[in-house]
């Protein structure tokens, strides 16, 4: 039966893709880690380390340098790095809930807001920093820190009116937690997993899931059906919703190029996918960084939906062609039932 399935797959592919020899999964995996995954996590570790350093520095000298510029810049740099790696969801980042601990999002029910309000309403416990990795994922990562760095209240060593926790203590603990997770990701991704074919299959899955994540949750959902829903935008507090999308599209395209390296340039589907990526990059650049502002404009939601549609097309085209070219199957039950 397997032989028959294989024949069917080959016949289907022959119509769309050049007949490919069985890929050298180990070589492809090496390229993937050296060119893509390891540089991404190295960068994330470096930028989150700097974020922790700047948060500590800000809190140490608060009063003398009350402006938030340095620490906010460090936050943006770290978020830039995270957005490059956000779509990697298998492997080391799937261990110990690291992905959700770095960024619990989407958060449609406002769990982060509720947990942060509760946290700030009580004095910070002595072991808070050590206990944080086991606390709710909602207060461990970027969304929680963003609330402290882009708030109406100052990031200060003094308790603010109506609160009992010292915001600086909380922020330093979260920044430390983020940097620790990133350091572990850098270290564990230094050695790729042993089963190269499964790893490539999971990476193709991450690419397809990543495209769907951006088009549906970052664009279509906040664009809304009857009216825009700007508070469903990612990182609207730090005014970088669309900057995230721009970075995501670039990162997903880079990942596609690594995985599709053996597809000849003149392959028509491959050219179409690249053209669509070009269109998506042009569209997001023209949309700016401030998603909330754009959603307030008359044609804003339409532009969100148009870009969402382009990314959906890219996702469908990649899902149709890349798994077959690489000899991997994205099916769940059809591939590996019981």
């Amino acid at each position, binding site marked *: *039966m*397997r*032989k*028959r*399935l294989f024949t069917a797959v080959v016949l289907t592919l022959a119509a769309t893709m050049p007949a490919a020899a069985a890929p050298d999964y180990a070589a492809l995996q090496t390229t993937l880690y050296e060119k893509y995954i390891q540089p991404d996590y190295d960068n994330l570790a470096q930028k989150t380390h700097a974020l922790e350093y700047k948060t500590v520095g800000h809190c140490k000298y608060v009063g003398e340098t009350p402006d938030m510029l340095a620490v906010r810049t460090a936050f943006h740099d770290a978020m830039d790095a995270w957005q490059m790696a956000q779509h990697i*969801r*298998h492997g080391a*980042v*799937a261990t110990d*809930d690291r*992905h*959700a601990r770095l960024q619990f999002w989407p958060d449609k029910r406002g769990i982060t807001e509720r947990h942060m309000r509760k946290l700030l309403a009580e004095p910070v416990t002595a072991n808070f920093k050590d206990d944080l990795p086991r606390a709710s994922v909602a207060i461990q990562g970027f969304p929680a820190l963003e609330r402290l760095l882009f708030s109406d209240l100052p990031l200060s060593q003094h308790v603010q009116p109506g609160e009992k926790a010292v915001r600086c203590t909380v922020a330093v603990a979260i920044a430390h937690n983020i940097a620790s997770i990133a350091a572990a990701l850098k270290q564990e991704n230094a050695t790729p997993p042993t089963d190269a074919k499964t790893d490539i299959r999971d990476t193709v*899955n991450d690419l397809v*899931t990543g495209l*769907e*994540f951006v088009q*549906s949750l970052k664009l279509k959902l906040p664009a809304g059906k009857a009216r825009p829903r700007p508070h469903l935008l990612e990182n609207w507090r730090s005014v970088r919703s669309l900057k995230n999308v721009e970075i995501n599209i670039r990162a997903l395209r880079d990942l596609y190029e690594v995985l599709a390296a053996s597809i000849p340039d003149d392959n028509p589907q491959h050219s179409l996918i690249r053209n669509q990526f070009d269109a998506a990059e042009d569209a997001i650049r023209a949309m700016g960084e401030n998603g909330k502002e754009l959603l307030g404009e008359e044609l804003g939601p339409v532009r969100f939906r148009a870009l969402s549609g382009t990314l959906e097309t890219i996702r469908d085209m990649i899902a149709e062609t890349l798994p077959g070219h690489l000899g991997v199957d994205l*099916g*769940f*039950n*059809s591939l590996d*039932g*019981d």
Partner: protein
Amino acid sequence: MSGGISLDRRAFGASLLALGLGAMLPIGARASSTSGFLATGYDKLSARHLISRLGADLDIRWDLPLRARGHGASVRPRSDEGIVIARRPGTYASVFGVEDGVQRHLMTPAPGRHFYGHGAYSADGNILFATENDFDNARGMIGVYDANAGYARISEFPSGGIGPHQLLPMPDGHTLAVANGGILTHPDTGREKLNLDTMRPSLVFIDMRTGAITERFSLAGARAQKLSIRHMAVLADGRVAVGCQDQAADGAALPLVYAQGGADKQLTALPMPTDVLDKFNGYCGSVAFNAMTRTLCVSSPRGGLVGFWHQPDGQWLGHVDMTDGCGLAPVAGAGLVMSSGDGTLQALDAARRPVDVERHAFRRWDNHMTALDTA
């Protein structure tokens, strides 16, 4: 969430037991109006395996993260709890509250055993049976657990073959039907199939009170021994129908769906158009029976379709397409819900027409669904 309601239900059941009235509850009643489904799945965003409670409206009520990929779920009769067993070679089984999705017990296999992915309760809900592998002796086993004593392992007996997979309680209240897939595996070699040349699949009836094998059914002919009997459903007349997975790679398309009724304790193939059988691609995923419409349903995720047969005559009724569709659950009333690896849940009415669809993005529904309120 309706945690309060479930607490009340528990208290209600407990007070009946205290009065010695537990046996007055009709067989199969669960002292609740529970509806909906249990489904194992995978969340692509958190890269976690889960079991989920779905409402009759196909919305997700709760998710319970699992430590590894889950497989079959069962509902304990006369209680508000269910169990999900890990996919083979399974190293855990999780017992949870059906209303709140909170884990109550985490079971691990006995030394020298692993789970095969399915369990079944006795009609009174007191005993759990689970298919297991005695891997060093290459024997299929049925583990016996006391659900009233924290799921303590109280006994075991041979399954009558190698590689037992699904098992179901029969309507007589004391017989277990067990599908012995026939495939030998060992945890040292993962899911690798070690005996494809010598496999002998069977459907076996076991007296759950004694462990004695009372009946054994097999497939006729040498080639049919390559058909691993994996999943089944009990029909309205008490016969069992099974769906097989072909382990041979010779390109021949053998019938894959059988029911009791042949001569010499052999299983009889149910008819199926050749083009549909070709699409099944040697693989049945789940088997379900809707008692109301007397329809047997068998999914083929490889073919992306679900086939239907009328019972008891076994007449072919047709098929519906369902991409990567595998999980099947009959709906109280009439229809059927099908689940897909692409996150889609599709409800059909009694005439197999689509009536409701819900796509859960970033979710992959795994092999099986379980109806909480069977048709």
